[in-house]
């Protein structure tokens, strides 16, 4: 293997510029847009990839549809505007933690501490804005919480990458230590941010519970769809001008249309008044927050050298090392980023829970399982090198849907745990079997 530090070693498929549609090349991990000449060819190529064990987000979208239809039949409130917003609010934490977890999973590692990093971050942010205590401004408290989370992730990453300790043990020990530290930071038995009399607490409270007014929601949507559509279209045009392989034009148009339709649906649903009395309407801030985290992490992983290195290490660490990738640096950064994103989840968690107790801190640990489950259900492999952060968002939505639906049906929490465990194991089995189905992978 030749060492080419600038190029990602996993992208060997791109080198063979075979433009004919042929099943063997298709199953060999080549993205369909590289050789499809028309929309019909593109769909056929995509279908071949799905059959070859490279299904991408398709299974999780299917799961979402099944969950939606199943629970809607069981309880007609499930797809109501009120419950859908509720469902999204519940899923936010799963989504963010799953994105954090994906940074570890892509390397072929695991981070079992994301739940308690979130717990620590939530306690830090809540304690720092207490008017009787530190009384920091809300933004300073958030920065401090995020710094602490990132630092903890970096320490764990250092233990994993420099001292070669297995990541599941480092993060297992790490979560125990965090649990203790979080309880120490909490000090007493309760800390709350629900006091409307203090500006800083109101700001924090609104991070999770605040909404854009309906008009602002529509304006933001137009801006967003415009930017995304323009970006996609320009990128396509630039590729075409330079003579690179591009997806058919109609496909780009369809993508833009899909984004617009999905966006309009979300804004329309959120703008329905969902209060029993009075008015609660508008797009929640958290949708924007999740979108920002998703876009930033996607850009980082798909468009930067750092991202290519992450996939390279996950695919084959030895090959990546020989290609000149500095494994410890990338690994440490990934764990630090997992810490950072869990820290963001922690800020939302504090805002969501409004008041934090020792028991809530202890319970934050259970989110780790759901985060791993969400990532794997979304389509991220446990064995590294395969996955995107969008998988975390979709998987988080599935988990949130299952929780929400079962709860609506009056199922007790232990049975919900049993159901989620079954889903996690099923996702892991599918992951293993689909890897087996894909050629050239162990």
């Amino acid at each position, binding site marked *: 293997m030749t060492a080419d530090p600038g190029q990602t070693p996993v992208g060997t498929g791109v080198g063979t510029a075979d433009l004919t549609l042929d099943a063997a090349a298709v199953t060999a991990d080549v993205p369909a847009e590289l050789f499809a000449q028309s929309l019909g060819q593109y769909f056929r190529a995509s279908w071949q990839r799905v059959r070859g064990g490279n299904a991408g987000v398709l299974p999780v979208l299917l799961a979402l549809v099944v969950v939606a239809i199943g629970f809607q039949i069981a309880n007609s409130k499930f797809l109501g505007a009120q419950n859908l917003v509720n469902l999204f609010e519940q899923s936010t934490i799963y989504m963010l933690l799953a994105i954090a977890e994906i940074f570890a999973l892509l390397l072929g590692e695991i981070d079992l501490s994301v739940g308690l990093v979130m717990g620590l971050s939530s306690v830090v942010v809540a304690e720092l804005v207490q008017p009787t205590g530190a009384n920091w401004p809300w933004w300073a408290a958030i920065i401090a919480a995020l710094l602490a989370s990132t630092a903890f992730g970096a320490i764990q990453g250092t233990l994993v990458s420099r001292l070669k300790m297995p990541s599941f043990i480092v993060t297992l*020990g790490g*979560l*125990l230590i965090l649990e203790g*530290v979080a309880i120490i930071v909490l000090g007493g038995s309760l800390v709350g941010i629900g006091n409307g009399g203090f500006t800083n607490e109101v700001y924090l409270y609104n991070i999770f519970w605040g909404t854009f007014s309906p008009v602002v929601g529509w304006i933001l949507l137009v801006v967003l769809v415009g930017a995304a559509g323009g970006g996609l279209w320009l990128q396509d045009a630039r590729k075409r001008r330079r003579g690179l392989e591009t997806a058919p034009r109609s496909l780009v148009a369809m993508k833009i249309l899909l984004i617009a339709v999905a966006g309009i649906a979300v804004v329309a649903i959120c703008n329905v008044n969902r209060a029993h009395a009075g008015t609660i309407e508008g797009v929640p801030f958290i949708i924007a927050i999740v979108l920002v985290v998703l876009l930033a992490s996607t850009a980082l992983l798909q468009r930067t050298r750092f991202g290519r290195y992450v996939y390279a290490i996950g695919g084959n660490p030895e090959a990546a090392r020989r290609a000149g990738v500095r494994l410890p640096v990338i690994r440490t950064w990934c764990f630090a980023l997992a810490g950072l994103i869990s820290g963001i989840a922690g800020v939302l968690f504090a805002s969501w829970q409004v008041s934090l107790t020792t028991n809530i801190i202890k319970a934050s640990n259970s989110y780790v399982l759901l985060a791993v489950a969400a990532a794997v259900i979304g389509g991220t492999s446990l064995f590294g090198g395969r996955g995107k952060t969008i998988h975390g968002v979709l998987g988080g939505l599935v988990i949130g849907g299952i929780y929400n639906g079962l709860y609506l049906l009056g199922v007790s929490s*232990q049975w919900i*745990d049993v159901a989620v465990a079954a889903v996690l*194991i099923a996702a*892991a*089995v599918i992951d293993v079997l689909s890897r087996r189905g894909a050629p050239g992978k162990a």
Partner: protein
Amino acid sequence: MTADHGESPATAAGTGTADLTLDAKVAEADLPPQLVAQSLGEYMRASWLRIRGGNSGVLPVILAIVIVAVVFEIITPEHAYLRPSNLVYIFGLSTVYMILAIAETIVLLLAEVDLSVGAVALIGGAIAFKLVQQPGPNWPWWAAILAALAICGAFGALQGALVALLRIPSFVVTLGGFLLFSGILIIILGGADSTVSLNTDDPNQNFIYDMVQGLISPLFGWIILAVVVGVAGTSQWFRAAARRRRGLVTPPVGVTVIRIALVTIVGAAVVLVCSVNRGTTLKHVTGVPWVIPIVLVVLAAWTITLQRTRFGRYMYAIGGNPESARRAGVSLPKIRIWGFALCSATAALGGILLGSFFYGQYSTNTADPGQLVLYTVAASVIGGVSLFGGRGKAIHGVLGGLLIGGIAYGVSLLSLGSLSTPLTYILPGGVLLIAVLIDVQSRRGAGA
């Protein structure tokens, strides 16, 4: 590598070179000192070389236990840590960790991990407690215990099958299992706030209650000790004699004598400590808890299974190098599934002891299954079992469990106020990380 079905591939390489001279390089290369030493002095020197080569066995954990004991004796209020009543209590508390750590050791030897042992153990305890209830199933105690072991064994086999047949990483399968079994536990107990307790007036239920709480009178304790030392001593002696007669390499006679003497001294110390009155002057409480012989039986059973049977050799072979074990004809899925099943069955026994330790009460608040797992993995690794497979013995689990129990109880003795709850998390976490760090470094030192 040649395939030799009767022999374990992991040890075959060392045993083959019958080099009887004492030389530092050989001693470092994983050879037990009894194979090279001709006299007591040589034996000691060979052992020292092995320790320096990163192969220290139980020595570090024994050292750690001594340090923990001394430190807590100094810093606890009124220097109460080493009082006989506390020592007996620590042992009762530690038995759960010991049994669970032995269970975890089985899986760790295969280079896998079982994060569900805590939840499985609690299920085992809950099942046994439910089955002896009267009114209720009213099963005899032995049938209830066997049923608990069998059901938990089946749970373990199920997880083992997912790991062994599909090769899903064991920490994922058992993480899911942990969540699943934690849910099932609450369902078995019959709701989040329900309690199952033993009625000590019923002799059948009282038997399970007595497994940790029951005491053997001091006189009886001495008799049992004499029998144990006698049997262990003569079997050691005869085995050494038999080996010598057949011209096999044997440890020097002096080593055998020292071993028997050590067992006697430790046993006598335990019985002596247990014979001191730890009640009040009005109500005497003396005697050896039943749980000590119970732990000894489990330890002996697992030591014999791992060190003296073909199954045990296969476990070490798989943990050392699965591919070479497979090529030597070992059926990896079969051994792995059995390993997980036996781990869970052993854990179930730990769960029953846990309920007995909590005065025959079982509720969802008895123990946090997640914390139990962490303590368990920490106990095995601190005891000297490697996370990477192929290195460890049942005795390591017992010693590691004692260390963890000793630390946990010592912290609870210090009146730390608001710090005591966080410390019950931070200490095992820190200890786990240090133990793994040592494990990783010693493997590096050993060149593996």
